[in-house]
């Protein structure tokens, strides 16, 4: 099994390095093929590991080599494949293989084709390190690695000012959160003396409650950055500047779920501190609602999906915060499939419309893009949580968790959010695929994507449909071996059926309303003048607030520090030292007149001076000592 572990982990790296060799060259098709094939290898290895674990095999734990060993500090490069990480590995490898194959078509005309695949595979490798590491240090390496690759891929089209800006925003916001994470890791090391998961989870019961709370909070700050939770959420929507496959892989399916993975992985810790868990859940519910509301009115296709991702991450945090770790992980998995599918569909639409993002300029595309239409509708149905698609099983479960745990406020918020989710998803579908063909006014000539791209997407479509009912049973059996196996059942069957059917009806109504309203949408000018629209459209003015009250004062401060401190104090000191030596040289270079007699005189003078100093020093020592 070790062989499969290493294959799963290192084949993306090999692909990335091979593609990187040709990074600066014009497009060569084989880089795409090689990286995809290696990803496929990784997928196959992960699948073998999955079946091994499913078959009751013990977790595979290897220590590849020592990384740091000084004094008491010992951190190995160790990897662990257990029930949780194998789930994540499957999610990562399935989605990334699909995205790689899809990208061969999507990036077809891009001149940096090879560079794209180098970074994309590097991302997958980092993500695998993140999920497979057996200690927090390795997790942190992966954590930073995915951050770096995300930066490079958001800013992939670096000639666009907005892309660079978005890349930097994402990176900087993540750095802020990573500081919190680092503090959490330091606290763990300080109190436990090891960063290994097993050592830490054993020690959790003996640690002081206040220490645990601190660790829990700081680790969660790290998770907030990666998973773009409020108030560090603004980067995710801006990250849509990157190529669409990147959005599908990184900003929907994998990297942004790393925060959820962290909380799930650290479940023994969060078990001990339910109050922090409750905070996590509340923040999650807030973000779910908050992000969904912004998606309601947005006019950028990709941003709508990004807000939807944010909202679903909120759901996952609710589940994780309430202690239903396996539910969170289940929703993570289901969400990865249908959200990646949705993004890839959006990519097809973008290609068809020559990078147009405003769904109000599309309409009626279902005639020309039948395949994409079907897949995006499927993904949206799954996202809305209609039986029997994947979203129903995972999202309804989260609602049940909130209900069973008696958090009725959270439950209500999540229920409302589910309706909003259904509404904005089908608003998008209705605007893009139904109604009049508004794109004709803008002179577009849409066409369906390459067939192989649609075929590449089809596994995701299949998973979005079946992941719920087909996998739920065996999934629960598998992960509850390591995660707390709490069953969430509403006791009275009547209440249960009312809840389920009620939710379905509400969601169905939201879908119907979205179709009705946006089937033949004209841009409603009067509606756009309403204050509530403006607030939502401007993302609650939060980016504006950050710009005005954080970025600008910081820029002012930096300016002052530059002019007053750097130029006047630091630079002046350094320049002063340099000038001193320069001037001394200027004054004394006449000594070097080339005349041997003069030099000898200077030599004698120097010797006398040194002797005098020596004598003075000796005398001084004896006086002091004497």
């Amino acid at each position, binding site marked *: 099994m070790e062989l499969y572990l290493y294959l799963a982990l290192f084949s993306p790296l090999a692909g990335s390095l091979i593609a990187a060799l040709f990074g600066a060259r014009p497009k060569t098709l084989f880089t795409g093929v090689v990286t995809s094939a290696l990803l496929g290898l990784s997928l196959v290895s992960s699948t073998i590991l999955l079946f091994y674990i499913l078959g009751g095999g013990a977790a595979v734990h290897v220590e590849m080599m020592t990384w740091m060993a000084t004094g008491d500090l010992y951190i190995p490069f160790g990897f662990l494949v257990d029930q949780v990480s194998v789930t994540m590995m499957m999610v990562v490898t399935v989605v990334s293989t699909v995205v790689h194959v899809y990208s061969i078509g999507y990036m077809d005309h891009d001149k940096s084709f090879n560079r794209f695949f180098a970074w994309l595979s590097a991302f997958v490798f980092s993500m695998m390190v993140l999920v497979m590491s057996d200690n927090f240090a390795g997790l942190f390496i992966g954590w930073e690695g995915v951050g770096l690759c995300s930066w490079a891929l958001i800013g992939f089209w670096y000639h666009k000012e907005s892309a660079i800006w978005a890349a930097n925003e994402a990176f900087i916001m993540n750095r802020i959160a990573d500081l919190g994470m680092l503090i959490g890791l330091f606290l763990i090391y300080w109190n436990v003396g090891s960063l290994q998961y097993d050592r830490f989870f054993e020690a959790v019961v003996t640690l002081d409650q206040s220490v645990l709370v601190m660790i829990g909070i700081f680790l969660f700050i790290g998770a907030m950055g990666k998973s773009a939770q409020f108030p560090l959420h603004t980067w995710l929507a801006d990250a849509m500047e990157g190529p669409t496959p990147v959005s599908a892989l990184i900003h929907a399916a994998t990297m942004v779920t790393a925060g959820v993975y962290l909380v799930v992985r650290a479940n023994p810790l969060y078990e001990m501190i339910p109050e922090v868990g409750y905070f996590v859940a509340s923040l999650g519910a807030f973000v779910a609602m908050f992000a969904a509301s912004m998606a309601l009115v947005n006019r950028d296709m990709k941003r709508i999906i990004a807000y939807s991702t944010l909202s679903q991450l909120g759901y996952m945090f609710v589940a994780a915060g309430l202690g239903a770790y396996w539910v969170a992980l289940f929703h993570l998995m289901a969400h990865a499939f249908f959200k990646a599918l949705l993004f890839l569909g959006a990519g097809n639409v973008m290609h068809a419309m020559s990078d147009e993002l405003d769904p109000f300029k599309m309409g009626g595309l279902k005639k020309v893009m039948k395949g994409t239409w079907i897949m995006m509708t499927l993904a949206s149905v799954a996202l809305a949580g209609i039986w029997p698609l994947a979203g129903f099983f995972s999202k309804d479960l989260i609602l049940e968790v909130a209900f069973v745990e008696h958090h009725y406020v959270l439950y209500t918020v999540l229920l409302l959010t589910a309706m909003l989710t259904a509404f904005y998803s089908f608003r998008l579908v209705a605007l893009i695929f139904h109604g009049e063909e508004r794109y004709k006014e803008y002179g577009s000539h849409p066409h369906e994507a390459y067939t192989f791209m649609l075929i590449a997407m089809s596994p995701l479509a299949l998973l979005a449909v079946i992941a719920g009912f087909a996998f739920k049973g065996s999934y629960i059996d598998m992960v509850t071996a390591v995660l707390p196996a709490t069953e969430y059942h509403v006791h009275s069957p009547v209440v249960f059926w009312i809840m389920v059917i009620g939710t379905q009806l509400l969601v169905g109504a939201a879908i119907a309303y979205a179709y009705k309203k946006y089937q033949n949408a004209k841009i409603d000018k009067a509606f756009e003048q309403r204050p509530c629209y403006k607030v939502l459209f401007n993302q609650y003015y939060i980016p504006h607030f950050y710009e005005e009250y954080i970025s600008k004062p910081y820029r002012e401060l930096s300016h002052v520090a530059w002019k007053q401190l750097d130029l006047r104090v630091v630079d002046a000191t350094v320049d002063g030292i340099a000038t001193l030596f320069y001037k001394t040289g200027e004054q004394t270079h006449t*000594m070097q007149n*080339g*005349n041997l*007699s003069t030099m000898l005189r200077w030599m004698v003078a120097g010797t006398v001076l040194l002797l005098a100093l020596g004598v003075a020093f000796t005398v001084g020592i004896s006086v002091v000592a004497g």
Partner: protein
Amino acid sequence: MEITLTHYLILSTLLFAIGLIGVMRRTNLLMLFFATEILLNAVNIGFAAISRYYGDLTGQMFAFFVIAIAASEVAVGLGLLIVWFKRSGGIDLTTMTSMKG
């Protein structure tokens, strides 16, 4: 009057001073060599005297080393001097300023 170590050291110092002044003042390269020899031998006197005073042969051995090195130094130096004289027709130090900084 008995001749003591002090006398030898005074002699050595005087010779050293003469040599030093020679090194600093002379502009004739040949004279500079003479002055250097005086310097070295002033030190040799010191070595030999102190060696005798302590009954330790190390100092005298060192003096032999110095003599040997001084001899080789003069051999090389005179060789260079002759070459220089042939090239420039003089051995005045003030004319040698090619190393001017």
